[in-house]
Structure formats: structure tokens, C-alpha cells
């Protein structure tokens, strides 16, 4: 790729992001502004912002990379990423908005009372948020390395620095505008190069699918997932979305329950539109970037295909456009996560002040950066899938049972979340430590959702049954609050 053009594209995206954020500073003045943009964001803006926030490095780079690596099985990832929002719409969107809570720990406290559930939820939100930022930074490191030969720490450090400045200056309101802008930037930065690539291939009479050879078995870097693996993956992606903290905090910016639902419907549409492009790039990549898996850089498929097909200045320009979109996705997801993690930390440790929020922001930028520098990754979609399994086994049962089951108690919620976190965390660590485990154990550890999610639900229900709930009257009040329409 052309280094000067690439750096210019990255600089442009970073500058635009910072500019919008600093403009947002003028209208962002109170703690409410910082956290929830005063709940005045319209569904279209909000849906674009959710899309912008959600489409991370795993979607922008990882989906195409995984298609090159694993072929047809990789198609389950974007399906799961999108269908997760259907589950969110069905079970969570409107009640969560009506709960009136700022963050997930607030929800735990409103529903269950007492500090224990709040503290456990807060700790999990922070862990999930930090773990989810790490793959974004790996993506940034890879992108800057491919584009400009920069060392790994440069990309990760750049993204965290811009995010830190953006969040510090504007909080949630400006983040909403930034995110909405970035969704459309991401769509355009994949759609335009794709059109040019297909036009060029058409004019030269080259089949984009190599006459169907692109759909053959993969370059054998990765075996298929198997039936258990596929079902466990679907479960993790469907339910994991419910617990993603940066997604949940977005719902508080809707004015009421029905608008939260409308927003979610729009999000499902926007995501469906977006994923057509990475999938198409993945199929192209199986012909035009088939050498990348061997080099361990399959995730760079989207970045390299335009230059390889078009060549010359056109290829450089379009490659730079894709790179800009990739940086938009690192920035938007990371800043969304930083806002929600910082929100939780500042309420838990700093009494929710603006200054506390700023200290927490710096903290939640630094820790994942250190984690990212200390670890490596060569399949972004896979590492994000692990985070989904973790949230599906911890925060998802809390939300589903908390919203729909009157019998949930504080002790039950804590026990279920701790069990899910320990089981899923141990399994994932085992899978990372011993990658060569034989099939049954290996799959159970690397795709644990199919057994850790039911386990967490079972413990949550069992312990709740065995302990005393709050008074009936308190539960009646909370349930009415969550489920009755506003007017």
C-alpha cells in the first residue's frame, strides 16, 4: 500500500473524529450530558450510532479474514453479530430503557436492591469492556503495520490516544454524533472500493469467484467448526450481544421504550446492509489474497484486495479509503467501550463526578493498551467471539432473568454471574494455554458457550429459589416500571 496516502487517510479520520468531539464540548455540560446525551437522540441517529459503535475491527477486518481462513463456516459470525440485535430487540430494548438506569450496574441495583449485585455487575462490565477493546487494538496494530510498516505499538497507541482525547472532551453526546458519522463512513469505505473492484474484474472478464473455485475448501489453516462448534458459536453470538456494555448504554439515549425498539429494528437493517460488504470482500480474498493466511495476516484481506485488483493510483486511493474506514471502526468501538467502562468506574469509585469520569477514562484507556501490547492475535473475529461467550455466560442471564422473572434474587444473580465467569473464563484460558487439545475437550474449551450459558442460568435460578426475594411490593413496582408503556 502507498504509505503517504495511507497515513493521510488515518490522519483525516482521526482529525474528523476529534473535531466533531470538540464541537460536542460546547453542548455537553453536565454529568447527564456525559452519560446519556440527555436522552434526546432521534432513532435514526441513534441506530446509526449503535451501528457505528458495534461494527468493530472484528466486523470490518475480521469477517473477511475469517472467510479467507475458514470459508463457509465463517459466515455464521456476521449472522450471529446481526441476530444478536434481534434478541436484544425481543428481550431487552424497551424494558431496559424504561428501567431508567444509566449503566448495567444501575440496572442490577434497581432490579435487585443492595450493593452486592451492583458491585459484581460493575466488575464484569469493566472486565468485558477491557477484553473487548484489546482486539480493536490488535486490529489497529495490524492495519498500521500493513499500511506503513509501523511497529505494532504505534497503531494501538494512536487509537487509544485519539479515543482518550475524544471521550475526555465530549462525553456521550459528541460520541453519538461521532459514531453515527462513523457507521456511514464504514459502509462507504467498503462499498465504493467493492464497486470499483467488481467493475474492473467485469471489464477484464475475470470471474470474481474464480469460476466457483473461491468456494472450495479453505487453505487448510483452520478446520471447520463442526456441529457442536457451530451451535455453540451461534448461542454465544446471539446471547452475548445482550450483555455488551457499550451497546446497552446506547439504549439509555432513546427517549422512551417504543423508540428504543424502533431504534433496534433500524440497527438490524443497518447491520444487514453492512455485512454484505465484508462477506463480498472475503469471497474476493479467497482468490486475490489467498497467500495471507500463510503469513498470519488474513485479517488484512479487506485492506489489500483493492490494491491487488486495481493496482496503480486507483488501487492506492481506494486502499487508503478502506484503511480510513478500518480506523473509524477501531476508534468508534473503542471509544464506546471506554465511555461505558469509565461510566461504571467513575460511579463506583469516584461518586459519578465529571472529574472522576475523566480519571476513569484515562484508566480505561491505559489498561487495555497494556493488555494489547502484551498479547498477540491472528484472528480478530475469533477473539471477539470469545468475549461474546463470556458476556453470554455472565451478564446475559442477569438481564434476561432480571427483566422477565420475578423470582430472581440478588444472591442468585451474583452466584450465577460468578459461576458463569469462572467456568467460561477457565475454559477460554485452557483453550488459549493448550491449543492442541484433542477434539472433544478442545472444542468444549474453545467454544464454551453451549455449556457455560445453561450452567449460569441454572445456578442463577437455583440459588434464587433457595434465597428470599425482596418484598412482593418492591418487585411489583420494578416490573411495572420495566414493562408498562410510558403513556
Amino acid at each position, binding site marked *: 500500500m502507498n504509505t503517504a496516502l495511507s497515513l493521510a487517510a488515518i490522519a483525516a479520520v482521526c482529525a474528523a473524529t476529534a473535531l466533531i468531539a470538540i464541537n460536542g464540548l460546547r453542548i455537553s455540560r453536565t454529568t447527564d450530558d456525559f452519560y446519556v446525551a440527555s436522552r434526546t437522540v432521534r432513532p435514526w441517529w441513534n441506530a446509526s450510532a449503535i451501528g457505528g459503535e458495534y461494527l468493530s475491527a472484528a466486523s470490518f477486518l475480521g469477517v473477511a479474514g475469517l472467510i479467507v481462513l475458514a470459508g463457509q463456516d465463517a*459466515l455464521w459470525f456476521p449472522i450471529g453479530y446481526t441476530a444478536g440485535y434481534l434478541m436484544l430487540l425481543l428481550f431487552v430494548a424497551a424494558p431496559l430503557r424504561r428501567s431508567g438506569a444509566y449503566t448495567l450496574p444501575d440496572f442490577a441495583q434497581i432490579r435487585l436492591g443492595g450493593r452486592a449485585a451492583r458491585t459484581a455487575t460493575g466488575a464484569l462490565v469493566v472486565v468485558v469492556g477491557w477484553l473487548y477493546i484489546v482486539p480493536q487494538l490488535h486490529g489497529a496494530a495490524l492495519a498500521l503495520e500493513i499500511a506503513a510498516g509501523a511497529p505494532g505499538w504505534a497503531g494501538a497507541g494512536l487509537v487509544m490516544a485519539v479515543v482518550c482525547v475524544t471521550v475526555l472532551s465530549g462525553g456521550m453526546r459528541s460520541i453519538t454524533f461521532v459514531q453515527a458519522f462513523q457507521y456511514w463512513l464504514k459502509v462507504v469505505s467498503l462499498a465504493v472500493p467493492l464497486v470499483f473492484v467488481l467493475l474492473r474484474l467485469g471489464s477484464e472478464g475475470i470471474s470474481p469467484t474464480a469460476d466457483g473455485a473461491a468456494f472450495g475448501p479453505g487453505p487448510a489453516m483452520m478446520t471447520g467448526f463442526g456441529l457442536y462448534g457451530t451451535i455453540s458459536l451461534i448461542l454465544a453470538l446471539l446471547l452475548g450481544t445482550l450483555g455488551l456494555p457499550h451497546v446497552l448504554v446506547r439504549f439509555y439515549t432513546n427517549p422512551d421504550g417504543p423508540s428504543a425498539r424502533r431504534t433496534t*429494528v433500524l440497527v438490524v437493517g443497518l447491520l444487514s446492509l453492512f455485512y454484505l460488504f465484508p462477506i463480498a470482500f472475503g469471497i474476493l480474498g479467497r482468490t486475490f489474497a489467498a497467500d495471507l493466511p500463510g503469513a498470519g495476516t488474513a485479517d488484512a484481506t479487506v485492506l489489500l484486495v483493492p490494491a491487488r485488483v486495481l493496482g496503480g493510483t486507483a488501487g492506492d486511493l481506494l486502499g487508503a479509503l478502506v484503511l480510513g474506514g478500518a480506523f473509524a471502526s477501531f476508534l468508534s468501538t473503542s471509544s464506546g467501550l471506554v465511555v461505558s467502562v469509565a461510566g461504571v468506574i467513575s460511579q463506583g469509585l469516584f461518586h459519578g463526578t465529571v472529574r472522576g469520569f475523566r480519571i476513569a477514562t484515562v484508566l480505561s484507556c491505559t489498561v487495555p493498551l497494556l493488555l494489547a501490547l502484551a498479547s498477540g492475535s491472528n484472528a480478530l473475529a475469533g477473539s471477539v467471539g470469545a468475549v461474546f461467550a463470556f458476556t453470554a455466560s455472565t451478564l446475559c442471564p442477569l438481564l434476561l432473568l432480571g427483566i422477565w422473572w420475578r423470582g430472581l434474587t440478588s444472591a442468585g444473580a451474583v452466584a450465577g454471574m460468578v459461576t458463569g465467569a469462572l467456568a467460561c473464563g477457565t475454559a477460554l484460558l485452557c483453550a488459549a494455554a493448550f491449543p492442541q487439545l484433542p477434539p472433544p475437550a478442545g472444542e468444549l474449551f474453545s467454544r464454551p458457550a453451549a455449556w457455560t450459558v445453561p450452567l449460569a442460568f441454572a445456578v442463577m435460578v437455583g440459588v434464587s429459589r433457595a434465597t428470599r426475594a425482596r418484598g412482593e411490593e418492591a418487585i411489583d413496582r420494578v416490573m411495572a416500571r420495566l414493562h408498562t408503556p410510558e403513556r
Partner: protein
Amino acid sequence: MTGGEDGPAPADPTPPGPHPPRPLPQQGFTPTDSETPVPPPRVRVTAPAGALPPPRTRAPDPAANFYVRSLVRSQLRLAVSVALGFVVVLVGMALLLALWPDIHGLRLFTVPLPWIALGIGVYPLLVVTAVLFNRAAARNEARYREIARQ
């Protein structure tokens, strides 16, 4: 850490101490009626850490609770049946692909059928399901509102 403790909060009551409270500035000095619009001052507002926002509902009465419970049940029934239907479709597709290898031979414009189904076909299904659910959920709420008003 005590990050929020320094600097007096505007809303703080006067700290107890030997000094009398400072005299308020004279009326005429307040710059409230200047011509240029002044942005609202930056305030330190503490989030309601722990405090439940005031309940929106009236005092609990048995009849109201009964209606709420039936609303919750009908919304849950709707959500679970839509979710189950969708999961059955997804798992069915996974089973079909795993148990019927010949399907990979069926192609449309060089693209195998499983790639079309998984790469494109699922998404319209998702959007339609979402739109239909949203309507049904809003209908449930409208029915509740009608009953609750009586």
C-alpha cells in the same frame, strides 16, 4: 481514591465553621440580563448513585398489578416464540449443512447454495422478523393501555 472531594460543589450547604456565610452580592451586580445569551454554567451534578429514580407508577393496587403481570406474560410469550422460531431456523440450517453434504454441489451463478443462504438469505429474514415483532409488541402495549385506562 477520593476523586470528587476537592473543590466545593455548588450545591453544597455552607460548611459548618466559625465564619458567618459570605454576604450575597448586590442585586445589581448579577449579569443575568445582559444581551448575549449565556450558556448554562458547567455544574457538577452527581449521578444518582444507587438512588432509584422516582417511580413512574401510582401506588400499587392489586388490579393494576394483575394487568401488569398479564402484560409481562404476553410480551414474554411473544418474544420467546419469535426467538424460538428464529433459533429453530438457524439450527435447522446448521444441521442441514452438516448432515446433507450434497447441498454444496448446488450452485447459482457459480455460488454454492449454502453460501447464498448464509451470506445473503438470512438477513432479509432477520429484518422482517424484527419489524413484525416490533408491531406485535406495540399492539400488546396498546391493549394494556386500553385496559388500564378503564
